[in-house]
């Protein structure tokens, strides 16, 4: 897809972000469809992702950490653009510095010397940018292969993928652009391995793994984005109705 095409698709995607009814914490009008995707994702996890991630979990961190570092580093230009779109100048400066240090001293980002001196990534994606711009979260979605999301975050994923500024940085070695996507996939597998037991517990041991995954994703995402409920709703009192 050409970037220009996105300008046409994006407003349509965003217009689709339905506003949750007041008081409802979970807005899931596509639940029947989402549950089918969830069943599909679980099958893929069982057949492919989980066995692979068991493999990576048994490999020493000395081999897997560089892959994770490389993938994180390749994602930094995109984070910087989103920092700027969110008017987070400090975050953009930190991530830029981090990218320069790790790409050079850290050999294409395989090592993370920036992290060692306290330059940690200030995470930013286009879904978060849309949140800062006031776009509502929209309905809950479970995406094939990617898992839990929302209409707003799904739109953000598309934009981040299509408009990755890494591809437009001429001074960056071509290897970084070429291996950005495969290492991103590998990173997912490695992280699935690192969180293996917790992941298994949610997917295979909870009574309703779809509802658990949905609840966990939405709460964690809102926490990340600082989209908390009003205090009197958030701090509900379980002693009240005893």
């Amino acid at each position, binding site marked *: 897809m050409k970037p220009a095409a996105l300008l046409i698709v994006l407003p349509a995607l965003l217009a689709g972000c339905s506003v949750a009814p007041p008081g409802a914490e979970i807005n899931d009008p596509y639940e029947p469809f989402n549950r089918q995707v969830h069943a599909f994702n679980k099958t893929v996890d069982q057949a492919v992702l989980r066995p692979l991630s068991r493999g990576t979990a048994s490999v020493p961190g000395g081999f897997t950490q560089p892959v994770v570092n490389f993938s994180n580093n390749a994602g930094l230009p995109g984070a910087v653009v989103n920092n700027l779109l969110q008017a987070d100048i400090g975050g953009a400066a930190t991530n830029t510095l981090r990218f320069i240090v790790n790409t050079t001293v850290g050999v294409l980002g395989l090592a993370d010397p920036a992290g060692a001196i306290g330059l940690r990534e200030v995470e930013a994606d286009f879904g978060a940018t849309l949140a800062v711009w006031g776009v509502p979260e929209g309905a809950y979605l479970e995406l094939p292969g990617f898992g839990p999301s929302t209409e707003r975050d799904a739109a953000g994923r598309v934009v981040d993928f299509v408009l990755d500024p890494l591809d437009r940085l001429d001074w960056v070695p071509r290897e970084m652009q070429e291996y950005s996507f495969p290492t991103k996939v590998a990173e997912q597998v490695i992280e699935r391995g690192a969180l293996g037991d917790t992941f298994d517990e949610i997917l295979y041991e909870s*009574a*309703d793994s779809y509802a658990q995954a949905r609840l966990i994703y939405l709460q964690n995402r809102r*926490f990340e984005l600082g989209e908390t409920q009003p205090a009197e709703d958030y701090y509900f009192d*379980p*002693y009240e109705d005893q």
Partner: protein
Amino acid sequence: MTFASTRRTFLAQGAALAALAVATPALAQDVASARALVDRLVADVNAVIASGQPEDRMIAQFAQIFQAYADAPTIARYSLGADARQATPDQLARYTQAFSNYVAEKYGRRFREFIGGQVVVEDARAVPNGIEVQTTAIFANEAPFRVDFWVSAGSGQLKFFNLIVEGVNMLLSERTEVQALLDQRGGDLERLIADLNAM
């Protein structure tokens, strides 16, 4: 909406506001003792982590820590939702017992994520439903993450009644879980108690 229900809503809101007004000026002393409670809990967890025992020994000890510091009856009751009102006192007592063991074991296992890291108490403050104690879990190769404890003396003893890890809330997770378990059993609380005991 009828006049009566509007009036009821209004009265309920008034009562809630009044309760809030009474609850809000939590004494500095309450904040300090809630913080001290979490300090002790964190010290216990860190001591188990530092002991370097085999993982399953650690998990058993984490379960004991959970049992000692958490208000399991309140968490149990909340997890049942509206079904708690239909249960007999005897059923509720047996459910609480079964659920307490299940939840301590589960979160004991979850504390294993702290192995290799350290938990640090950051701050404590009064919030509408008690005291919120904020902690940070720190690991060598990861960004630190937030763990909040909600503490109350509502049970008669100072205990924590909710645990929030990066925004993810234990009470809501357990209510979702228990509702699903009940649905699978056609709403039969007796079967749920039996199955929780067998877990």
